[in-house]
């Protein structure tokens, strides 16, 4: 986005009407907001069902158990974004070796294991406190981004299939476990009470790995360069 800084925001004849319109909208919505008598919420219901849910934090219980289906779809959205990004373009990473200073390299070497540890701690604590797959995944992603900006040559060696498997790890685990529930409890995603917390943890870890990988890959901004050669190979056999 090199033109970003040089681009002058022009005078717009539309500006005044649009601003008037949106301010009107703002007033209208605020007025409605003030007039609403807030309903009670679902806290009590969640609290009462919490012991069976396999998680101690009500938020986690809602996310992974009561409204687990939403979370499954949410993981799919994330997967979709990397799929879309890969379909749109190739990663715009520099082809040549980046000059990285020794300090940076050693810092990264120190940081990466620490970050992975923190990430898994977050996931682990997710069942009890505010934490979980997405938080852990973000830390993992940060680690991935650090690697990307400092240790590029090694990363390019990663084969595309490993990345792909990583992306689908979360959703597939989630779906498989949800299916497993059909066999045990006859309902999709109704986890068996005995092993519910283990299952949730399992899902969280898988999702965290996928989320971390996906976010880091999104940072790279597209499919790996080797992707096209694979496609050509595939095309020749078609």
């Amino acid at each position, binding site marked *: 986005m090199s033109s970003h800084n040089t681009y002058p925001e022009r005078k717009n004849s539309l500006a005044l009407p649009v601003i008037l319109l949106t301010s009107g909208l703002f007033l209208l919505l605020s007025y409605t907001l003030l007039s609403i008598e807030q309903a009670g919420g679902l806290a009590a219901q969640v609290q009462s069902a919490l012991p*069976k849910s396999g998680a101690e934090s009500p938020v986690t219980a809602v996310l992974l158990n009561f409204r687990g289906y939403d979370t499954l779809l949410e993981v799919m959205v994330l997967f979709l974004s990397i799929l879309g990004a890969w379909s*749109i373009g190739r990663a715009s990473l520099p082809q040549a070796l980046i000059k990285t200073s020794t300090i940076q390299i050693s810092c990264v070497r120190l940081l990466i294991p620490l970050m992975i540890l923190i990430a898994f701690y977050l996931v682990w604590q997710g069942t009890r406190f505010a934490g979980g797959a997405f938080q852990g995944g973000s830390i993992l992603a940060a680690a991935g981004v650090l690697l990307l900006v400092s240790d590029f040559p090694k990363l390019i060696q990663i084969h595309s299939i490993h990345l792909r498997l990583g992306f689908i790890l979360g959703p597939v685990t989630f779906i498989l476990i949800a299916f497993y529930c059909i066999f045990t409890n006859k309902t999709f995603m109704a986890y068996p009470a005995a092993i519910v917390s283990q299952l949730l943890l399992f899902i969280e870890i898988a999702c965290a790995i996928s989320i971390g990988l996906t976010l880091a890959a999104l940072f790279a901004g597209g499919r790996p360069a080797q992707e096209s050669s694979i496609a050509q190979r595939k095309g020749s056999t078609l």
Partner: protein
Amino acid sequence: MAPILIPLGGGLLSFIFYRKGFSISLLASIVGISLRTDGPSLLMLLMTGVTSITITLYAAGYFSFRIASPSKPGRHERQLQFFWPLWMILLGSLNGLFLAGDIFNIYVTLELIGLSAVALSALSAKPSSQIAAFRYLLVSLLGSLSYLLGIAFLYKTYALLDLDMLRLVPPMKGAHTAFALMSVGLMLKTALFPMHFWLPPAHANALAPVSAILSALVVKASFYLLFRFWFDIFNDLVTPGALFVIGLLGTGAVFWGSIQALRQHRMKLLIAYSTVAQLGYLFIAFPLTQIQEKLYWLPVICMAMGHGFAKTAMFMASGAIFLHVKHDRINELTGVRAYLPVTVFAYTIAGVNLMGLPPSGGFIAKWMLIYAAFEMHKWWWGIVIMLGSLLAAAYVYRVVSKLYVMPPDTIIIEKKAHSMLLEWPPLFLAILSLILGILAPYMVSILLLSKKLVSIGGIM
């Protein structure tokens, strides 16, 4: 190996949705999410299923043709590789939407649909399609956010997310605002005039199978929700004035879309504008719907199904023609009939449905709407519908008259080997849209099926 695994994930998802549609459980809980099927959603699922099978077959033919004669080496393989997973996820989320029984869950499926549709429409790597896709993404996000804001208001008012429970609550302060916000968001996604500006470029610049998917299925999904909200869930909040305004907007869409379609020089743009016009009919149905009648869903479902099948067939046919002629300028399409007879035939039959001639699904829908217009003493809507059909006939024949003639000096392009998969799926769908009127009794019996409920994440 590698590219196969990803579609598998997507395919798996869509497979689950199918499974869920058929399993029944009576456990409903206030915090969990439930899925439900009833007559209308079953019909929409049916439409999605039939259309998607034919689109899948067509896409196979389409990509194999393109890979055999590439315009740029490697490009079409890449398109193929990403088309399948994106399409499977889109299909799965469409099914999920039709089955959804939870207002927030609908938001997530809407996002899934929007994202995959955008990625699909950007697949044809030319700049115009990417710009159109970007605009489509912004509009889609704007629509979802408006919808989400509506959810926030609704949750503030009722603290409920389940559709069945929301149906039972009395209208309260704030519900109107929430309803309006959600409706506007969905209308934006359905491309109701004058919010249609994004649709023609996005649909016309995509690859042919993608255009078919977008036009036939994606806009129908948000329309289905809109209709359900207005007449099933939040019917207490609907006022005659609002219905009238929607009808007016629909009228605007019919005329504007048709006239724009008549002015286009490219076949795909013409078809895309015709989508705008045809969606207008669906909105004209709003002031003509009488919910005391058991079958109030029938006209819109007939129209949506007929249009879905016909539009898919038209986009597929235009894609097949493009592949063979290398352009889709309407005025230069004479003589195509000589080497693509089946395709041209399919296009024509699909056009018959758009015109609303009997016995197509469009005819049944228009019949019922005009009938309702007379019964409710609102005959002016009937005139709008008739004029719209005439305009539809005009733009359909603008292309058909070119396709059918063979001027004496036509240069017949050398006949190329083309895939059966390019020609027959559109014909199948076109014929299906034509005989939809005859299938109407079966649709009625499906519509009258009782509701089935599935809950997910059992809190017992």
